[in-house]
């Protein structure tokens, strides 16, 4: 089990605010890693820096041994990084299934000249339907995404990312906004996909689900990594407990 995603020395500043301060972590092939931490810890910023959506002040990102730090977002995605958004961003002019069919056909749109002469979408729509079934929203396949409830669009984000057939799936709070039944079902689905070999990095506040399906935790607080290890061990760490429950309650308990 080698390292598939190696993230080194990420520093991100927004104006005078340091969002990430020299953070490094690595993900092993086939692993299920959860990225946790309080609000504003820099988790989303980290995934955006890894995918190149934002430009970090410094960072080195290696995917399967290849340095992708200088590549634009779409090339990193082609090499196998798929990202879902915490605040859903479906393509609003498309139906649910076409949102997924587009990414299922990512090879067809890689070159503009071949995209220009390719017409048939049926093979991609068939594959898209499988992903919609996988996350359980195939009943709204032909419907416009506009007006769909958050429970549907959150799962659509995951289906759209899976259709890219990535090497590493980066999920930004996929369970937020789902009810407990939907959340448990989606996290089971993600865990199943992971068991079939896909490497997953997931940001999640739902600690119950994190502890249930995560294999390793990386904890960020205030732009710094404060812990990295197996869930049980990390949750015993006093620094983590302090960051999570707050120092006052920790003191009050003591």
């Amino acid at each position, binding site marked *: 089990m080698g390292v598939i995603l190696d993230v080194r020395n990420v520093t991100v500043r927004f104006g005078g605010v340091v969002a990430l301060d020299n953070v490094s972590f690595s993900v092993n092939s086939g692993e299920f890693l959860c990225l946790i931490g309080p609000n504003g810890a820099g988790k989303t910023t980290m995934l955006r820096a890894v995918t190149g959506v934002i430009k970090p002040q410094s960072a080195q990102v290696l995917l399967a041994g290849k340095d992708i730090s200088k590549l634009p977002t*779409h090339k990193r995605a082609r090499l196998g990084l*798929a990202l879902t958004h915490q605040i859903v961003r479906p393509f609003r002019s498309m139906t649910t299934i076409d949102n997924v069919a*587009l990414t299922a056909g990512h090879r067809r*749109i890689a070159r*503009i000249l071949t995209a220009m002469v390719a017409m048939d*979408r049926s093979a991609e729509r068939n594959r898209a339907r499988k992903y919609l079934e996988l996350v359980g929203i195939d009943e709204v396949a032909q419907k416009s995404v506009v007006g769909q409830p958050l429970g549907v669009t959150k799962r659509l984000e995951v289906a759209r990312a899976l259709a890219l057939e990535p090497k590493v799936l980066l999920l930004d709070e996929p369970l937020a906004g789902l009810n407990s039944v939907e959340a448990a079902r989606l996290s089971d689905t993600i865990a199943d996909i992971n068991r079939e070999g896909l490497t997953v990095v997931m940001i999640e506040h739902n600690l119950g689900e994190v502890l249930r399906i995560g294999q390793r935790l990386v904890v960020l607080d205030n732009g710094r990594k404060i812990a990295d290890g197996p869930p049980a061990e990390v949750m015993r760490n006093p620094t983590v407990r302090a960051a999570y429950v707050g120092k006052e309650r920790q003191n009050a308990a003591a």
Partner: protein
Amino acid sequence: MGIYEISLATVVGINIILALGLNMISGFCGQISLGHAAFYGVGAYTSALLAKAGAPLPLAIAAGMISAGIVGLIVGLASLRVRHDFLAITTMGVGFLFLGIVRQQEFLGGELGISAIPSSGFGKIGYLVIVLILAGFVTAFSLWIKRSWMGFAFDAVADDEDTARVVTVDVNAYKLAAFAMGTSMAGIAGGLYTFFARFLMPDDFGFITSITVLSMVVVGGIGSVFGVIAATIILTLMPEFFRFISDYKLLVYGALLFAVMRFAPEGLAGLARSSLAHMRFKTRTKDEVA
């Protein structure tokens, strides 16, 4: 058909090509442009200079298309970093820049324009047929692009370009392709206009023309090929049938633009779709009652 009707039909055909070009950029790919007339002008002036130098019509029009496409590609490259209202202002600036340059150049005729452009040599009817064939070709090409995977990727760029990047779409390449194709169409329209009017004035390619073309695209329904064609026909003929409109063209088109964006953002195509759906709904409920 009298000469008047023939020339009206020719203008309609030229405007369809012009408007479908802007529809490629703004409708399909979602990139607003307020300077489309500049590319129309680049095509027209290129064709005019070549025609006066003795080049045959196909060569002159092809050169107009290519030169407009190249300028479009350059403007597209320069515009990659700006979006939305900034892109609107940048492209508007390109329109004024074009006029500013043309007005000062002796060899482009300056304020007086270019006159005595040779005739197409096909007669009025023959030329109309050529224009309509090219308009048909541009229509077919637009429909093809819309249905292709390129059109699919354009939809993604128009909807949300940051997300498009995350799902592997090379947004810059697609934007440049849209600019190159759309401005090439404007170049064809410009070349056709040259042989139709046989006299070019800088003001033919000014801001009013850009706004007129934008009105055709928006009123027709951004992205809808047939909606844009319908709006182009209506908006080209309207000032002819109601003379007073041509005196207040900018006012009328401005008001139309505002009204459509405010009350029917999907334009004629959207209105047609919703009334069709409404009719279906009515017949269905009638059936259910019966």
